[in-house]
């Protein structure tokens, strides 16, 4: 199974879930398959799963999908233990495993030897940890994960190679602002606070004293 085949198989399932993708093929292919301001790219190798855990803890009533890679997960293995400890019910952690550091030229990762990431996740306390090697099995696993309490871990075993898709269209700052606006619009929260210049302090104080809004 190619990564894009796997992603195509789940694009209709995710709804308005927040999706964090590890840098490289997962980011560009996912955004090509399901363009949305709810897509957040991770730039630090390994931190995708941790950013996803933070989103899941910060917004417990929303599903959060992490599209991790085998090299990235290996770099931040402690995140599996932390997810197992915190047990976020809304987190769906997917490891797209092609056994190589694809974005860095294709040298093998630990997964090219004997690693079983699903067993590792289960050992870390993530009881719902499954393996998928076909688009059908992967879609079924994601549908189950999105429809039930987690945390869930899906070890998605894919072939090497990146699909011919455009680069991710946003730099980190624009990606952040778009993502936060998506969170605001879909939760009703107000997150970005406008800076209040000192010249407004008198106006605000008088409004507060008179009991009306500024």
């Amino acid at each position, binding site marked *: 199974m190619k990564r894009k085949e796997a992603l195509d198989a789940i694009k209709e399932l995710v709804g308005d879930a927040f999706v964090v993708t590890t840098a490289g093929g997962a980011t560009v292919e996912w955004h090509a398959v399901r363009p949305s301001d709810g897509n957040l790219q991770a730039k630090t190798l390994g931190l995708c799963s941790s950013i996803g855990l933070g989103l899941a803890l910060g917004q417990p009533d929303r599903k959060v999908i992490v599209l991790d890679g085998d090299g990235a997960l290996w770099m931040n293995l402690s995140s599996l233990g932390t997810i197992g400890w915190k047990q976020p019910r809304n987190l769906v952690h997917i490891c797209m495993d092609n056994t190589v550091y694809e974005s860095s030229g294709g040298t093998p990762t630990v997964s090219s030897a004997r690693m079983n990431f699903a067993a590792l996740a289960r050992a870390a306390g993530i009881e719902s940890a499954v393996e998928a090697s076909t688009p059908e099995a992967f879609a079924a696993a994601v549908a189950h994960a999105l429809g039930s309490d987690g945390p869930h871990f899906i070890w998605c075993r894919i072939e090497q190679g990146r699909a011919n898709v455009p680069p991710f269209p946003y730099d*980190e700052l624009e990606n952040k602002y778009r993502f936060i606006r998506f969170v605001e619009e879909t939760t009703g929260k107000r997150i970005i606070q406008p800076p209040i210049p000192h010249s407004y302090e008198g106006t605000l104080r008088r409004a507060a004293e008179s009991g009306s809004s500024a």
Partner: protein
Amino acid sequence: MATAEAAQRFIGALKEAGVDFVVAVPDINLLELMKALAADPDIEYTPVGREEEGIGICTGGALTGHRVAILMQNGGLLNSCNGLTTTALQFGIPILLLVYYAGDWGDNAFHMLGLVTEPVLQALDIKYQALRDPSTLAQQVRGAVTVAEASKRPVALLVTRAVL
């Protein structure tokens, strides 16, 4: 010696500044504060295995509208440098870094950490100050959170034994 009273004062300062989401890695001097944070129902608290993991978790917390902090020793600050640079700084994420200042003046442990801590923060362009006086703690925490939120960057407070 860290005390439970000092820990409550510290948590009060964090709450007053709006901090409601904290991750932490232990240091013996942070023990009372970590125990109190873990027991506090108003703070989403996550103990992590490695500090850089905490930078990622704080980023997710900040993006969902929380005021976030990471509590760690300065050795952990060094462990976090890539995450601070390519996640927190590159995306512009406000995170309060509460960094226990091992190797500070008068501290006989980890003197090399003490030597490099401030130069590393300067190299990362992270604004910082030390917490040395319990009477100014709340004001300093409030000021640091204000700057982090306004600048959308991590800001560091170097935590010394005087405020623990």
